[in-house]
């Protein structure tokens, strides 16, 4: 234990003695999240919407007009042979991607508003592209809110209110408003954690000091674990900075408990650090280690974790691979906690998998290190 402490203390000194790298560790993720965060949240210039007005009242026509008057919305109300659009027809249009959403105004809207003071507008969104779906939802909601305030102005403080009852077709989980940024947080946190440790053993290999560790009485597992521990603190701080940035710059809500998120973030970071140390034991120098880390964290986390492509859409082989990617689990966790307010108990499986991955990666790193030590060349 005393010997692990020696390694940990030494690694801390390395970290503190290199303030430039440390600054980079904190600035790089913010730049990435900033650039990537904006590059995907593009604006929609045109939203094709089908409106099925079952009420055909003064109020419903006003609502349709409100949509039609908006510069972005292109509203279609009529189906074949100039009759009112049916739901089946509209759904077919949605499938053919002629429209992005269906707005359904129920027949009893005015009645409900009068009696309950509240009426629900049905909304069906094409969720196949989650980013677009998010935007469509936001745009629709904004128009409805404006319309509501108009109603309030006419009917006094306790006036009637319209709300949305939303269904998302083709990808039900995309109900969230801010889908992308939390995913980005997950990918970047993994990359940074792995990067931190990936350089640590390869640097010793480069300078030759690894020979002295090899012939020291330290056990390989002590070296591996000792080199991982100090970076937990750095990565956790980094993670907190990234989350704060997402929260306050991009306005991502935090519906769940921050403590829950941090507990899982800790497990996730450890998995990332373990991945980094495994890379570090194999890489001949820091350059290779850095490239290998970028490749092995960014690509799979973007493509195979459910971040960009939903897991269901992947082939079985790729789905199997997704189980080995830490981001797969943390993505579910962070989206769940941030957007749905999920609790600790909802993610016992994910947490368990993160722990299992860390143990496996650390064991592999130790084994690899030990082998090099036993039969250097």
């Amino acid at each position, binding site marked *: 234990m*005393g*010997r692990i*402490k*020696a*390694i940990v*203390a*030494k690694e801390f*000194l*390395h970290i503190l*003695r*290199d303030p430039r790298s440390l600054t980079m560790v904190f600035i790089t993720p913010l730049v990435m999240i900033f650039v990537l965060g904006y590059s995907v949240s593009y604006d929609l210039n045109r939203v094709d919407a089908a409106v099925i007005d079952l009420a055909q009242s003064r109020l419903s026509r006003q609502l349709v007009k409100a949509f039609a008057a908006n510069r972005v919305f292109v509203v279609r109300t009529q189906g074949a042979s100039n009759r009112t659009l049916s739901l089946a027809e509209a759904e077919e249009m949605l499938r053919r991607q002629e429209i992005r959403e269906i707005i359904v105004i129920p027949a009893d809207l005015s009645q409900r508003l009068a009696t309950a003071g509240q009426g629900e507008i049905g909304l069906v969104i094409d969720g196949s592209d989650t980013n677009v779906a998010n935007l469509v939802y936001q745009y629709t909601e904004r128009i409805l809110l404006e319309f509501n305030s108009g109603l309030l102005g006419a009917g006094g403080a306790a006036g009637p209110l319209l709300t949305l009852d939303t269904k998302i077709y083709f990808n039900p989980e995309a109900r969230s408003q801010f889908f992308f940024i939390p995913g980005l947080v997950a990918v970047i946190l993994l990359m940074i954690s792995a990067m931190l440790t990936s350089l640590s053993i390869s640097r010793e290999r480069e*300078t*030759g*000091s690894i*020979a*002295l*560790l*090899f*012939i*020291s*009485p*330290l056990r390989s597992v002590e070296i591996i674990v000792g080199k991982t521990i100090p970076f937990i603190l750095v990565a956790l701080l980094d993670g907190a900075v990234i989350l704060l940035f997402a929260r306050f710059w991009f306005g991502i809500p935090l519906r769940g408990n921050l403590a829950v998120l941090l507990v899982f973030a800790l497990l996730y970071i450890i998995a990332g650090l373990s991945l980094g140390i495994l890379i570090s034991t194999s890489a001949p120098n820091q350059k290779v280690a850095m490239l290998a880390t970028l490749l092995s964290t960014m690509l799979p986390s973007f493509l195979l974790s459910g971040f960009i492509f939903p897991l269901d859409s992947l082939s079985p082989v790729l789905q199997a691979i997704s189980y080995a990617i830490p981001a797969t689990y943390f993505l579910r966790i962070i989206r769940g906690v941030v957007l749905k307010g999920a609790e600790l108990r909802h993610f016992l499986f994910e947490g368990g998998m993160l722990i299992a991955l860390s143990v496996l990666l650390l064991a592999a790193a130790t084994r690899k290190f030990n082998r090099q030590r*036993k*039969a*250097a*060349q």
Partner: protein
Amino acid sequence: MVRLEHVSKSFAAVRAVDDVSLDIKKAAITILTGADGAGKSTLFRMLVGLVKKDRGAILLNGEEIGDDYSRITSICGYMPERFSLYTDLSVEENMDFFAAIQQVPPARRRELKQRLLARTGMEPFRRRRAGDLSGGMKQKLALSTILLSSPELIILDEPTTGVDPLSRIEFFAIIEALKNEGKTIVMSTPYLAEAEKGDYVVFVKNGRVMLQDALASLRDSFPARLFRILPRGNVFEAMRAAAAIPGLESSAYMRGKFIQYLQTGSENLGRLIPHLEMIEEKPGLEDMYIYYERRQ
């Protein structure tokens, strides 16, 4: 104390160490010398288990160690060829780290550190980062860290290469003192003249041990005499003329205006005097190395 018996090591097609047998005597300084790539570093790395030998045996006090390199590493201090300490840590922090991983008890650590800092003259620099030390000081720090575990066997891979002469002399003073304390020291150097500071000399060439002997007996048994020849006129013509004389062997060696030759048999010496002005010299280790190398 340590014996290598018929050890060999190949990297791909290159025989880095080729059937080497070597004796490292207790409480003495053994110096290996030879060109880069001769196999000196590989030999040392094999000794501490950083490189796995293909063949041969390593014996410690007469017992074969097999695969248990910890029997050697637990009693030895090994200083690699390149400066391998942490340049971003201070002198003291480096020492503390290596003391901790060598499991030197904390109580002893302080006292030992103090003594080593004093002994190497590093005391004023204890807070300086290792990367900011001069070449000679780096070597002393590296030596100090390996002495923290009080090793019986000290293995030093080219500790003086490129280091200024003053530091080299101080370095050898420390080594000499360690020997007098009963430590066994084995080191390598690219400077042949430096090998004269050892008790035993080992010439290494192309992965093989060309010669190993006690320095004194190497000198006593050297069979040739050495002359400097002062040419009259063109140096190159004089060299050619001398090379034609039987019994004289060119060492193809030139010092400014001098040419140097090795004399293998003295019977023709008399004939030479009228032709050339000659000055007899004491052969150095470099001359001996070349003499034996040609007879391989």
